[in-house]
């Protein structure tokens, strides 16, 4: 029986359909280490325990679960882990899977739940969650009145990384199934990232295109600039609605929120809906024909001009600089 530190923070690590630790794991363990002793829960292969240790887990609990049953077995495992570890807080990824588990667990145990945190902290009274709401227009801190705090953490929001633990204590977690009804998973089709470009969420640089591109074919200009900068590709809702690119590219209130070092908006007017998803970018560059486009109100460098002449010249100038 392993004893757990009094300041334990239980971290549920997502496991991908192919059985690896999800990319959110490093940030979750980094956040946990900043407020206590990270204890990882892995519902999956015990082999992943060493990897969790390398990302900072002081101890690891491993549980197995029926993958054909949607969500509920992981909630049962989390409940067993919390009973055993008695953590100050539970951190879960704000992923589709993580949100379901955190929501069901909090509802089942009547725990205080905070979602979409961009950071965590601790004060004299306990664990705090930090949020960036309304597209980054406000920062809000939340806390539980009492009890274990369940927090989902926005993917890619925490830069802190925990020190590697070379020999984490690993134990198997016995889980009593709750018997709560669950949906069945009939098949899983993993979407493999084939592009060499960075993923939009969490990218350091993003080039986004809007309706100003004019067509799906001309959207290639966005790809060319993205490749010249080593950036991820995004799009405004208008470009998605017009069918230039799939909806997974959409940056904004109803799409992906990004906070890159550099955000380049091409042919995007800057509707509030779009601004809400990117205005926390460190540097914003905009190119648009319309001098009155609202995007210019927040751009650090704005060019009023035809993007089909400006962007190729920009790519050429960047290439010349590299040469």
């Amino acid at each position, binding site marked *: 029986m392993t004893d757990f530190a009094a300041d334990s923070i239980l971290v549920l690590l997502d496991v991908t359909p192919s059985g690896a630790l999800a990319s959110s794991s490093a940030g979750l363990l980094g956040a946990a280490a900043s407020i206590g002793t990270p204890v990882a829960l892995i519902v999956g292969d015990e082999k992943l325990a060493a990897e969790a240790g390398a990302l900072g887990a002081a101890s690891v609990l491993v549980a197995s679960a029926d993958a054909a049953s949607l969500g*509920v077995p992981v909630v049962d495992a989390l409940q067993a882990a919390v009973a055993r570890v008695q953590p100050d807080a539970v951190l879960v990824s704000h992923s589709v899977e993580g949100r379901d588990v955190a*929501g069901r667990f909090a509802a089942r145990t009547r725990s205080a*739940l905070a979602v979409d945190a961009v950071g965590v902290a601790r004060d004299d009274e306990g664990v705090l969650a930090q949020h960036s709401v309304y597209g980054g227009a406000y920062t809000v801190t939340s806390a539980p009145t009492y009890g274990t705090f369940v927090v989902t953490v926005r993917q890619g929001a925490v830069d802190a990384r925990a020190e590697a633990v070379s020999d984490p204590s690993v134990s198997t977690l016995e889980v009593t199934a709750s018997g709560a009804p669950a949906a069945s*998973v009939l098949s899983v089709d993993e979407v493999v990232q084939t592009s060499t470009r960075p993923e939009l969420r969490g990218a350091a640089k993003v080039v986004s295109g809007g309706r100003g591109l004019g067509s799906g074919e001309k959207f290639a200009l966005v790809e060319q600039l993205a490749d010249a900068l080593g950036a991820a590709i995004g799009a405004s809702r208008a470009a998605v609605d017009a069918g230039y690119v799939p909806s997974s590219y959409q940056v904004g209130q109803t799409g992906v929120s990004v906070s890159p070092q*550099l955000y380049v908006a091409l042919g995007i007017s800057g509707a509030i809906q779009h601004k809400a998803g990117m205005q926390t970018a460190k540097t914003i560059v905009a*190119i648009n024909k319309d001098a009155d486009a609202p995007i210019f109100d927040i751009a650090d460098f704005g*060019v009023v001009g035809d993007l089909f002449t400006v962007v190729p010249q920009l790519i050429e100038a960047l290439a010349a600089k590299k040469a």
Partner: protein
Amino acid sequence: MKIVVLVKEVPDTYGDRVLNLETGLADRAVGDRVLDEIGERALEVALSYADAHPGTEVAVVSMASDAAAATVRKGLAMGAGSALQVVDEALAGADLGLTAEVLAAAVKRVGFDLVIAGNQSTDGSGGVMAAMVAELLGVPHATALSTVEIGDDTVTGTRTSDGANMQVSAPLPAVISITEALPDARFPNFKGIMAAKKKPFETVTVADLGVDADPGARPWSIMTAIAAKPARAAGTKIVDEGDAGAQLAEFLIQNRLV
């Protein structure tokens, strides 16, 4: 078949949205308030099924202040048969846990075979409510569905998960949430708007639902601090005179962004 659709009034994302820095609550006086689009799409899923299956009952359920009644009524104008709105001052600042308890109790009162919600509201972006309500109702959840097929005793669909598309199936009763990949909602027509005035619209309190809204009754998530980020200011703006691309490259290089 009885389908309950969870809907929510939110600040219009096409306008400015304001939080009161004293209370931390949304300022309802600023900007337009609208029915959340994802909830409208959820209602469209229910109405499309009802169109093809006579005898289907569709009800909208919402937790909101009095002032939101007109917004909830839009659900009736679109075609829902009845509405239930939970209105109670004790719910101001309710956390996710209390909100889930209230919605689950409201859904139980209405009765359901299937509950449909949007995957994430545009204001809170929590994305947890469907799973929470499912847990409290003791039924399966199938969230983030980009396709939905409602059968007599099951609901199936494609779940757009993290890095995977999965086919899932749940026996009814169940709670599902849907994504923006599903079709836009229909517009209420004049006939619908007129008919909405005659449809049942029930307003209930937490006491009616038998829910304890006392913050001491169980742990709450509370807001302890709030601050507005300073607005961004515009920087350099140039009009292209043939060398804007080169100037922009220079700006990026100087700021070590390439």
